[in-house]
């Protein structure tokens, strides 16, 4: 068998081996791939940067644990950036399986920055029917959430004393893996004019560009790539960036295999014709 034929009929185990190596190397020796920051991610970063210490921002953690790999780094980076700047956070978790995961993240980051519940942040937790919850919070956070996640009445939390509704927060960043994003756009922004930015999974990203163009959202982070951009900008964490390097090598290797297979196919066909 000549070279091209052999290339075309390469044993699958060589493919496995090369793909394995392409993933193992960046896991063991993480390197940085260039991160191109897009405007839609930068505007979220700029917004958070523009906040003063003591300002309040609303962070909506609206995804299930299955989507963690892609969007968790976004939530983490934004939370860390806020706490580093002493910006206060109100956090909700409107996805059914999300509250426990959100709580873990919050307590982990809060411990790192020495932040206290009720003083530096307020975790509202979960209530069903996200559309209605988002609408009700436009009246007063206390309607859907008389108490926070830990069962403490909002009225007794120092940071919530003068906070009633969206008018008292500087903006909302919604990180989501499902249609809760739509509710935030339709009800949050549409009804109450909330200044809104979103972070979504890779598959969802394309659907939300129209809202960016129309100004209904001011920023958009899409999937692992958006997360890595935000990490690079804010310099808070590098999980998504690391993952990006693994993805890059693996994708390149697979594409090269496809190209090699086609070269083998065309060259051997050419020879057969002769």
């Amino acid at each position, binding site marked *: 068998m000549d070279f091209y034929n052999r290339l075309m009929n*390469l044993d*699958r185990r060589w*493919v*496995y081996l090369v*793909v*394995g190596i392409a*993933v193992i190397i960046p896991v063991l020796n993480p390197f940085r*791939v*260039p*991160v*191109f920051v*897009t405007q839609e991610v930068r505007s979220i970063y700029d917004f958070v940067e523009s906040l003063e210490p003591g300002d309040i921002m609303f962070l909506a953690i609206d995804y299930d644990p299955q989507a963690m790999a892609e969007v968790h780094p976004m939530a983490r980076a934004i939370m860390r950036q806020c706490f580093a700047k002493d910006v206060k956070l109100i956090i909700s978790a409107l996805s059914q399986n999300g509250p426990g995961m959100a709580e873990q993240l919050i307590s982990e980051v809060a411990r790192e920055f020495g932040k206290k519940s009720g003083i530096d942040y307020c975790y509202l937790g979960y209530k069903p029917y996200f559309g209605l919850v988002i609408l009700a919070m436009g009246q007063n956070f206390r309607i859907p959430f008389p108490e926070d996640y830990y069962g403490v009445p909002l009225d007794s939390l120092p940071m919530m004393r003068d906070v009633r509704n969206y008018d008292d927060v500087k903006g909302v960043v919604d990180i989501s893996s499902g249609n809760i994003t739509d509710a935030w756009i339709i009800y949050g922004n549409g009804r109450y004019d909330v200044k809104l930015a979103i972070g979504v999974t*890779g598959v969802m*990203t*394309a*659907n939300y*560009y129209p809202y960016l163009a129309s100004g209904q959202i001011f920023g958009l982070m899409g999937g692992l*790539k958006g997360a890595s951009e935000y990490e690079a900008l804010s310099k808070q964490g590098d999980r998504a960036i690391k993952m*990006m390097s693994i*993805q*890059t090598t*693996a*994708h*390149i*290797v*697979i*594409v090269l*295999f*496809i190209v*090699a*297979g*086609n070269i083998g*196919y*065309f060259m051997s066909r050419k020879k057969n014709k002769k």
Partner: protein
Amino acid sequence: MRREIPIAICFLAGIFYTLELFIPHRQVLSIFETVRQWAQILIAFAYVLAIANILRVNFHAIQKNQRDWPYKVVLIVSLFFMITLGIFFGGIGEGTIFDWVYYHAQYPLQSTMFALLAFFIASAAFRAFRIRTLEAALLAVTAVLVMIGRVPVGEELWNNFPDFTEWIMNVPQLAGKRAIMIGAALGAISTALKVLTGLERTYLGGE
């Protein structure tokens, strides 16, 4: 009798639940919900059939000394091992042995099976993405473009690469997906309708 009654049951239950979408009455909805719970209970009981099937098939294999029969012993022992742990060793809560076995045996096994897909997806791409016909070309070229567009290499090559992949997702991909979805839904609905009216009674089996 043996056929007509089941068909009647299926028809009534089907019509009842088709109407659910149109009746917002609270009490009625709670009845719907209760009866739906019944279906879940039914499955819990039907699982006995599944276990019986596993035991029968594997016992026969062991009895006949079929090739690989020692592994069937592993299968049956591990099945009973899990059931024993769940019932006699503290239930299924966090920190029980059942939980530990789940996290350190079942979970790694399953997630490694899942991870094998990374290799399979590569070998399938290598083998099948040969540009033999126009259809194959469209398939292969789109896949390669989307793969490149998802990682920073794309931007390195061409500034608008990510926008281009998004266009692929947003226009041709979306159109194809919708066409399949609408067609498949119509097919599913007409099959469902035939089941409901008893025209299609395969699920009941033969006489």
